[in-house]
């Protein structure tokens, strides 16, 4: 592991950013964007997850092997979503 670690200042900035994104999530829930409500909520949550992984979980300061493991986690989530959607999206097919 790289010796570099986030400073307390980085943590505080991140914390504020996460709280701001939380506010954005709540605000977006009050806008009627039709099907795009989900898309916006997902994008915001991806941004939150990214901040947590990069800074709070130290991924930004880690070696490639750690990135591979983190990537595997995301990839496996993708497997779950794709194969489960394979059910939901084809239920109406005849």
């Amino acid at each position, binding site marked *: 592991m790289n010796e570099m670690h986030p400073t307390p200042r980085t943590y505080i900035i991140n914390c504020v950013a996460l709280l701001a994104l939380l506010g954005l999530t709540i605000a977006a829930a009050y806008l009627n964007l039709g099907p795009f409500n989900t898309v916006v909520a997902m994008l915001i949550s991806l941004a939150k997850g990214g901040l947590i992984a990069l800074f709070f979980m130290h991924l930004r300061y880690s070696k490639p092997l750690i990135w591979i493991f983190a990537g*595997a986690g995301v990839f496996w989530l993708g497997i*779950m979503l794709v194969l*489960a959607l394979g059910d939901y*999206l084809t239920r109406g097919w005849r």
Partner: protein
Amino acid sequence: MTTATLQAEPQPVARVARTYLNERTTIASWLLTTDHKRIALLYMVSITLFFLIGGAAATLMRLELLTPQGDLVASDTYNKLFTIHGVVMVWFFLIPSIPTVLGNFLLPMMIGARDVAFPKINLASWYLFMGGGAFAVFSILSGGVDTGWTFYTPYSSTYANGHVIAMATGIFIAGFGSIATGLNFIVTTHKMRAPGMTWMKLPLFVWSLYTTSIILVLATPVLAITLALMALERAFGVGIFNPSLGGDPLLFQHLFWFYSHPAVYIMILPGMGVVSELITCFARKKIFGYQFVAAASVAIAVLGFLVWGHHMFVSSQSIYAGMIFSVLSFMVAIPSAIKVFNWTATLYKGSISFHTPMLYALGFIGLFTIGGLTGLFLASLAVDVHVHDTYFVIAHFHYIMVGGMVMAYLGALHFWWPKITGRMYPEWLAKLAALSIFAGFNLTFFPQFILGYLGMPRRYHVYAPEFQVLNVLSTAGASILALGYFLPLGYLLWSWKYGKIAGPNPWRATGLEWTTPSPPPKDNFDTTPIVTEGPYEYDPRATEAELRAAHA
């Protein structure tokens, strides 16, 4: 396997003065230990107790099924019995069994390390496991749960009585123990290997633990979230799975099986690793196709994540998804078959001896093959419609989990028992137990294939009278099986004190764990071993020559 010379013959040496067992003997020294070997024993005692609870529930079920009428327990009690049996056996015995007991004991020794990477987290894993177990036992004692081990919604989240949330909380907490163990094993395998112990020199048991750990880390969080969502719906009426609240019940099944199908491989992969160790030692041969057996473990771990939908063929899942899941399920047979064929090829021209661990290993190969092949029946869309939720399914997965996994666990326990305790178990009694288990197991579960094919559904305590003969056979088999399980419980405990002194390497096995005294000292090795050879450097011809000379 190392530059250190292996002990040629089991020698009755005096027990080493200081071992991990006698270094400190207070109760606190056990409960606060960070020694991987002691933690392994803590797990061994715990999972044996849970096995007895799960076994007691199974005994009552089999007794009830002796007659077609519901004359021993009420239907509600029967529902609770199969739920207790499933929950306890899956999460508190099968999943932790080989990884936490033998994996904990052996992984550091097999790679030439003094302990796992995070000894304190290792102890914390056991406390999480026991905390989860306490919730499960509370749930059982305070009235039980009748949802089945699968907790299908909306029944579990809306309609079921009983302590569903307490049971789910138990599984949730124990799951964190699993994740921590998996994480520990992954880091240990990456970072703690002795000099010269390259990936292609790892014992296959280590490969299987490594791949199992990856599944533990990737799948268990999904189970935790799923059970948490179910509890949220049950406690607060948040609509996630219940259609009347706007949820989708199949979403629960997707999430549940995304964990629970890979969980089958959490159970069976370590068993496969054990069999690779036993077959090579008792055939005195190098494993046939090391790379293929190792890669097959990885392939099973990966493919195991892609097949969960085969549990949902008749659930109104899209038929197109069903087709994809069916094809993917068939693909898992390929790496599994690679392993079976490679073990068989390893036996070819080996110098085979039938010690108890080998009996279990051979039993594993046969029973796992039957379990695996009947899995292909179930993975076929049309056949599954006929046998879904029947005793055919029960027989199939018990062939994998009991015929495969429990056989491997017992084989491993006997094989490494001399290392764990420094004592030998009584061989004849052990062989008798192994044969009782094999015979009892088949008599219990083979009739269930026929029952299922004939249409007897699972989870019913009242059945049509024409099914009675096969059910009586099954219950008779279960009593032989139970005898087979109680025998090792008795003689292993006896041998701990009175067994013959084993010496460091009674099987003349390769592997770093056999280069240390039995029982090992606290830090495993006096000096860090340097590995120069691959695992399984056995010579069947030399063994045969020795045997001929001994009998001349």
